[in-house]
């Protein structure tokens, strides 16, 4: 069996982009490449994986050859066990200021939206935007939602944002343009932890309503 072939393009003068498409292949590639030295950054995008190299150590052409060689042994890195996070959350009210408007627009009750969210398993597609901000895929496409016309200057850490097809988890307090329906209770970013980020690309996430106090 031959290794899959990927198109690789330059991303500026010190990074290379592997056009591998969506899905688990990005996470498998990222895990595999992280076993090699010489890649300064390994960053999944929605449809690709971009790696940085040190232009003081090698030319782009040499890095491209090295990447090609590494990709040939893709199957050699056993996939990391998929982590699963079950996150307790509160919905609506101050924690989810846009839930009521979203429900009204979709002709649903708030409980129906919460029910839909609770019965889905999401995947962490990528992290980005700000530290630990997790883009989750797998949102029921019936939950049609658009970015706010006026982004908020402050969104609480742990906030759950909804955009059609995606859930965004705000690891940090900060500006945000996604409609917010709730907030997870566990810290997604904890500077006291050695690995401060709860989520990693490829992880599974279940969000459920916390039991009332």
């Amino acid at each position, binding site marked *: 069996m031959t290794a899959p072939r990927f198109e690789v*393009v*330059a*991303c*500026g*003068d*010190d*990074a290379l*982009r592997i056009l591998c498409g969506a899905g688990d292949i990005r996470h498998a590639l*990222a895990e595999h490449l992280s076993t090699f030295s010489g890649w*300064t*950054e*390994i*960053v*999944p*995008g*929605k*449809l*690709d994986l*971009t790696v*940085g190299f040190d*232009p*003081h150590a090698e*030319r*782009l*052409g040499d890095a491209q050859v090295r990447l090609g060689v590494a990709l040939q042994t893709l199957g050699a890195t056993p996939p990391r066990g998929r982590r699963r996070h079950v996150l307790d959350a509160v919905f609506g009210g101050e924690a989810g200021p846009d839930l009521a408007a979203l429900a009204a627009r979709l002709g649903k009750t708030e409980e129906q939206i919460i029910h839909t969210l609770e019965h889905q398993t999401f995947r962490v597609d*990528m*992290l*980005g*935007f*700000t*530290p*630990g*901000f997790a*883009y989750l895929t797998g949102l029921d496409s019936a939950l049609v939602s658009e970015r706010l016309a006026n982004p908020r200057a402050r969104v609480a850490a742990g906030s759950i944002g909804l955009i059609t097809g995606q859930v965004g988890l705000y*690891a*940090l307090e*900060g500006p945000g343009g996604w409609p917010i329906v709730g907030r997870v209770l566990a810290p997604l*970013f904890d*500077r006291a932890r050695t690995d*401060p*980020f709860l989520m*990693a*690309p490829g992880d599974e996430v279940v969000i459920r309503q916390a039991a009332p106090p």
Partner: protein
Amino acid sequence: MTLRILEPGVQCTVQAAPRKGLRHAGVPASGPADPVSMALANRLVGKPSGAACLEIAFGPASFRAADAVQVAVTGAIADLQAGGLASPMHATLSIASGETLAIGPAHTGARLYLAVAGHLPAEDFLGSASTYLPARIGGREGRALQKGDVLQISAASPVPQLTTPEALKLPTAAAYALRVVAGPDMPDSADTFASAVFHVTPRLSRMGVEIDGDFPALGASSLRPSSAVFPGALQVTPQGRGFLLLPDGQTTGGYPHVLQVIRADRHLLGQLRPGDSVRFLLRTQAQAEEALLAKQALLQAWLPDFRL
């Protein structure tokens, strides 16, 4: 010994060597917006290129030393007074006990670097002491320094009086010619970039710089699924506005990544200020590699531990 901030300028943060290898978690590099100027400042007080420094946007800024201390200021061009006397940039300065270092408003350029002999306290986070304000990490409690803050500086043995070699005082001008290579989303009709003159708008921070001018309006269909972006990326919005990413810039983005400022010239982005003119000089990959070698060689003798 202590250094008291009397006036912090538009924004004063502790910056040091950047964070590395964390962009997949959404953690940008941070670190100095102009790493060459920071390295030069550190060199004048006998410290490694990536030692923690104060990055001061625009000034005016002033500091009072409780005890005698040696300092150096580089970067954007401003008038300095040490103990009330006009003093040069790019030189090791001695501030006497109780005296003030006053940095005037920057005439050209955007960021000044103040290096202090002795250890400058900063919170290490994920391998770097650099302040990243959006996540409130690094530096001093993850925030910008404010009037009245007092920095505890450890005592240092005296360092020799130095000045930056003339050839390394990078000209801080109001007009920039930035060498670029094509970005992954460069449209075929990109030759307009080669001749046009663009301008820096007032929308400027450590995250990025907005550039105004005759960019092609790529339209809403140009938005693409998010991919990694890096400092030096020039993104063009559907409305035809350009954004150049700086060290605190976001790690992924969906605007077309049209050009990439080459590694050799990225340090210049930290000095762009509103109204400055910018031209983009399209280069091949081979030319970008030659440019990096040439500029690195220029810096090597004076800054042996520094890499662009």
